């Protein structure tokens, strides 16, 4: 009986759906988190009776055939890359990207990672690093004598040094873009890495065409909308229940069959 396996594909799909929603809700307060969504597609069809098959010598054809579906599958868990709200923190090394682009992070093993979570700090050597201590490319060092550090919208990092009237430029932060942001692989710790489907990273100066600008003293909040998530959760749970009802009904039918001709 096919109904059983079809309903089980439905239950598995809804389970994935609930897992994705749970992860979104769990990351509601994660800086720079981007909401995910499970995408579903119908499975293959078996043609039992072909539409358009001839039904007589005079050329009449079947207007519709019989196609039996095999259920549903999760095609992808895609990320929705809309901008999150900016919340003010007033901390000098909290940087938010307004618009598109990612900060470029150099991992301890020398590989590249990308993030939108701009909750940075200083390393013991005075370099701007992530909260895990990974260097924010290109690696800007802030002298310990600096009174204050400012980062402008174009990503220029400047420091006020005692005894100098003009601010000293320490370096230039760069942003990175991808042909297909949705194809980035999430690595945990708010970091993403490049994949073949994301395309290769294109670096640029913040504020130039196509790149976002930098807001110092702000953090980008997650773009998760709790109301939307809860609504999706209810829908997913009901859909799961309905699929389980189909399992019960299919089971009842088989039970009836096995009791036929008994006694």
């Amino acid at each position, binding site marked *: 009986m096919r109904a059983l396996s079809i*309903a089980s594909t439905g239950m598995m799909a809804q389970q994935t759906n609930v897992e994705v929603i749970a992860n979104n809700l769990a990351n509601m307060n994660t800086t720079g988190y981007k909401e995910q969504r499970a995408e*579903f597609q119908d*499975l293959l069809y078996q043609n039992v009776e072909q539409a358009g098959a001839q039904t007589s010598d005079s050329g009449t054809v079947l207007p519709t055939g019989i*196609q*039996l579906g095999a*259920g549903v599958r999760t095609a992808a868990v895609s990320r929705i890359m*809309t901008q999150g709200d900016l919340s003010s923190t007033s901390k000098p090394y909290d940087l938010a990207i307004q618009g*598109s682009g990612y900060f470029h992070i150099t991992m301890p093993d020398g590989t590249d990672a990308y993030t939108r979570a701009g909750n940075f700090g200083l390393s013991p050597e005075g370099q701007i690093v992530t909260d895990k201590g990974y260097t924010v490319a290109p690696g800007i060092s802030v002298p310990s004598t600096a009174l204050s550090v400012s980062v402008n919208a174009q990503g220029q990092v400047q420091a006020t040094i005692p005894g100098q009237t003009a601010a000293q430029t320490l370096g230039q932060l760069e942003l990175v873009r*991808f042909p297909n942001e949705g194809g980035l692989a999430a690595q945990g710790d708010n970091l993403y890495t490049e994949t073949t489907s994301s395309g290769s990273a294109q670096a640029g100066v913040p504020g130039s065409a196509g790149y976002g600008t930098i807001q110092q003293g702000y953090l980008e909040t997650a773009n998760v909308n709790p109301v939307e998530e809860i609504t999706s959760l209810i*829908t997913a749970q009901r859909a799961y229940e309905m699929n389980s009802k189909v399992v019960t009904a299919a089971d009842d039918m088989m039970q009836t069959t096995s009791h036929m001709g008994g006694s």
Partner: protein
Amino acid sequence: MDNTLLVSLSQQLASYRSMDVIANNIANINTPAYKRESVKFEEYVQQTKPAEGETGTQNISFVQDKGTARDLTQGAATHTGNQFDFAINGPGYFTIKTPDGDRYTRNGHFTLDSSGRIATEDGNTLQGDGGDVTITSDDGDIHVAKDGTITGAHGQLGQLKLVNFANEAALQKQGASLYSTDQQPTAVASPQIEQGNLEESNVQPVLEISHMLEVLRAYQTTANLTQTQEDLERSAIDKLGAAPN
């Protein structure tokens, strides 16, 4: 006398298939733009010899499932906010280029592939009026107008085309929300595309669940009928086969 069993059998086989179709509808309740299907039954009439002491011919009706009908009504649109989600409001299908030729879909969930073309999750590209639609990262956020015109930061990038067919019901489902057909597509005169929305499936939970119970009960009733018929035969054999006193 076996006819009762055979008629019951025809109904039971048809019930099994209805159940499969209902299960598929419910499994796809959250699949964008999925169209619900229902089984169409037909009566198959066979003429047999009249029973003893009767005249004329007697007809026996079997049940047969002759086709699945697709409900083509539009599903509700839900807002997703994703710039590559397009819902079709009204008639029409998107054209998707696959390695096996053109396919058609109403599932408007797209993404970009590694070369920046608008594609499905399986990597098959969406066709605009001039073939593939490529978005470069310089184009920034794109805007799709109701008529399908795609605009980026540096102007127009192309236009999405919607097509329709003379006989929509004859489109074959291919899985992965795609349809195939031999029919020639014709362009939809005034397409209505809603960016940031997705068309939901048109599966009505209440309808499917009540339909499912109906099929289940009909199946059980027929099974009871088979049982009764068997009891009847058994007692007939007992009675007629008993040694006369």
